[in-house]
């Protein structure tokens, strides 16, 4: 057992910064959408904050993309083409059965392999579909203040708002699931602590390879 650095300082900063911004966007976005009923931030403030934070998120996303691309960390998002379905099934089985019977986690995390197969496919979908959709529709909604007529080219503000709102709901659902699944570590707080300190307690000697497949799960 030893402590291993899973997340660098920048990665942790990036994560928490992105988390704060996503939560702020959700809060302000829902305040705009449900203004006067469930909105808790005044409309004008919510719109301004939403626009500013939205742009910060876009900038942070591009910085993150640049970082993950240049450090090669981006590879961790790409699923293993051959055994992904096996690994994904094991992960799913662990979530639905194994963890209730005190089975060990199918994936031992390390700095080189931080994401389980289900995380990989989820983050890929979010980074390649949901986030771009939100950014494009959000920027289009923002841009209409300069050219209201151009908005008609993309189906009108109503259609844009519908897609943006649906994306927001999915983001909210993702955040909820993400936070819950973060409690499925060795202890409910383990993953939170890791994302704050960067270190995680890993079995085996320092520098050993992760154990992607457990012996007893081959059958």
């Amino acid at each position: 057992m030893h402590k291993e650095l899973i997340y660098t300082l920048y990665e942790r900063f990036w994560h928490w910064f992105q988390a704060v911004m996503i939560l702020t966007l959700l809060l302000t976005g829902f305040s705009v959408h449900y203004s006067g009923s469930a909105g808790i931030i005044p409309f004008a403030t919510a719109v301004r904050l939403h626009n500013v934070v939205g742009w910060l998120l876009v900038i942070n996303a591009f910085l993150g993309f640049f970082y993950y691309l240049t450090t090669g960390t981006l590879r961790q998002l790409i699923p293993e083409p051959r055994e992904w379905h096996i690994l994904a099934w094991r992960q799913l089985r662990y979530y639905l059965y194994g963890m209730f019977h005190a089975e060990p986690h199918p994936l031992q995390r390390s700095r080189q392999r931080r994401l389980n197969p289900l995380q990989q496919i989820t983050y890929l979908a979010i980074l390649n579909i949901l986030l771009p959709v939100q950014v494009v529709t959000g920027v289009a909604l923002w841009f209409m203040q300069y050219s209201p007529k151009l908005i008609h080219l993309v189906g009108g503000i109503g259609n844009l708002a519908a897609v943006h709102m649906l994306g927001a709901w999915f983001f909210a659902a993702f955040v909820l699931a993400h936070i819950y699944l973060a409690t499925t570590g060795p202890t409910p707080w383990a993953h939170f602590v890791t994302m704050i300190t960067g270190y995680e307690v890993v079995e085996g000697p320092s520098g050993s390879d992760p154990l992607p497949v457990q012996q007893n799960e081959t059958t």
Partner: protein
Amino acid sequence: MGTTKRNWVRRVLERSAVWAAVLPLIMLSSDRCMAIAEVAQSQRQENLTEITHRPVRLLDANGQNVIASGQPVSAERTCGACHDAQYISNHCYHADLGIRRWFRPGQSERAAHAWDYTSGGVGGWTPFFYQRLSPPGESKPDLGLADWLRTYGFRYVGGRLGQFGFGDQLLTKRDGHSPEQAATPNDTPAGGPQVEKSGPDAMASSSPGSQSELTWDPDLISTLSGNQPMRWDWGSSGTLEMNCFLCHLHSPDNASRIEEIKAGRFAWAVTATLASTGAVVRKGTQWEYNKQAFDQRGAVVAQAFRIERPTAEQCGQCHGKVVSAHEQLSCLEISWSDWSTLTKGQIFSPQRISDSELNIAGKETLVRPWDIHAASLLDCRHCHFSLDNPALFEPPARGRPKHLRFEPRRLSFAEYLERPSHQFAKGDTAQGKIAPEFTGTMRTCRDCHDATAAHEWLPFRAVHLARLECETCHIPAVYAPALEAIDWSAPANGQPFLEWRGVTSSNSTNVPLITGFRPVILPRKAVDGELRLGPYNLVRASYWVESGASPRPVRLRDLEAILSGVSHNTGHNRSESSVVFSTNQQTRSLQPHYSTTEIAGRLKNAGVSSPEYTVEIWPFGIHHGVAPARLAIRQCETCHSSSSLLGQSFSLGKVQDDDKSREARIVSSSGIPQAYSLQISSSTQNPVLILTPTPEKAGFYILGKSRHNWVDWLGFLAMVGIVLAIMVHTSFRIVPYLSSVRSICRQD
């Protein structure tokens, strides 16, 4: 170098001296500004009417001075001595009311109703002027031209329609009379001109269900003069020529003019308008000229005879209440001629609302003028100017070469004064379609105000300016009563049942409390083809239509004939005058108390074919009563919230027939899309028709208000699913944990 320095020093010293002198003045001026403005306002009338007009010789139709002839004044001959009166009359939609281009009913797709025969004006029927001037050839005619003038001429300035009717020949000529034989004060009977039985070419009968035997000629036949249609004697009555004095005289006597028109003494209408000048005096039913008011050359020298440019007061005689700075607004009486007050609650006045003596709720806080433009010394003509006025003319953007910044081809002032077009610049109203060729020629808010510069604080400015009319935010409320519903389905004493919004009747006193109202915001296609949200008052109109091949509203006389046994709820009858609302008394019209089935049955028995109870909604765009900028709507939540103003429900009065009311539509010619829903609210004792705007149906999406319900439901279900999954998963995680804890405890 030294000289330069000395110059610089001298300039600084000079400027310091100037500032030293100016600064105290600036400090004082802040207090003085209001006083100066008030003085300017009080002197407004005098300043504007200082323009002196040359002495006027009043001429009769033969060109003789009326002092000598004793004949009625002819404005056409009197003013025509210097101005091209013929040209003016022929270039004035106020004078022809669209009659020059009338069409057979049902032949225009732009018409609001199948029975309309002009695009607006006289042939564009509205429930506010229920009785129709029936066009030539119509079976079961309603009013002839003389009848129509007597009934509705109080809002008509005279001219083309009143002189030529549907044809091109002067009515007095068509009748076999010449203008020389026009009625004189001495031979005009008190009850109006002599009417002759029209003989064999008269209508056979005008009783319900009867058909005309011969072709109906509205120019010659009167249906109101007796039990039978009769030929109208234009030679005796004279025609209703364009009354220049009604708009250009400082204090025209409109009441006397209306009296003459109602009596059918059309030729004397112009003369009666001069009663307030002292140049003419009423003697019984006749008029005599006051020779002391004329000089030796026969020109009027009376002090009160002041010719001037039309001010808002003159326009207000037919278009709505105008209260000048000097007039105390102690009582508000609304009559049928107060069109904009009646339909929109408009009062054009520079006075502060708080200064009026009206019983207005929260009046002490309304320290603002009734209309900011009136307070800024603007008159109607500043925006609705004569289209060839060289000082105000601007070529319309439509069809104008983009490179053309200035149009030099305009009249000289001399040319303009000789032949001033009386085609006035007009907007594009939802309720009126007269002279569509001039639609959008008027000066709008954006022609004077730079909205972009004035709204730097406004987020998403371009969107707001593109999708909203200025009035939406700048007329947040109306502080006078306006019609809510007009019901002609069972008229009492020839009058409809009226309901008012913006006013509540007080039980403790006999004085109504004016609460005002917030206009409903609806989308409408503007002149440039763009849909914009603007403020409206809506009036529900109910009436009977005689459907069939030639549908038309059931004639008032037919309705009155079958309604003799119909009871009306008790209430004060309206007064004998044309006042339909007064703040001095409870003026409630009689509420019909009947079933539509019962009335329909009676109409059928009386020969009205397929009577159909019709309910429609008339929109009236609110463009006046603009508030100062500080009182404009600025709070985002006013529109961007679940309780958005843009979705605010609007009452349309008590309903008689639920199904028909639900089917009601805003009149199609208004350009307002059907972006609204109608419900019947039964929360009160009487069911009320409620209209709720749904701008989303017209392509608007208002953040904070608009919803895609399927998106919200899908998102909500996704969240619920995630929460349920977490709860189930958590419980499965906790159970083994608790079991292990229990077993450890047992082992201990």
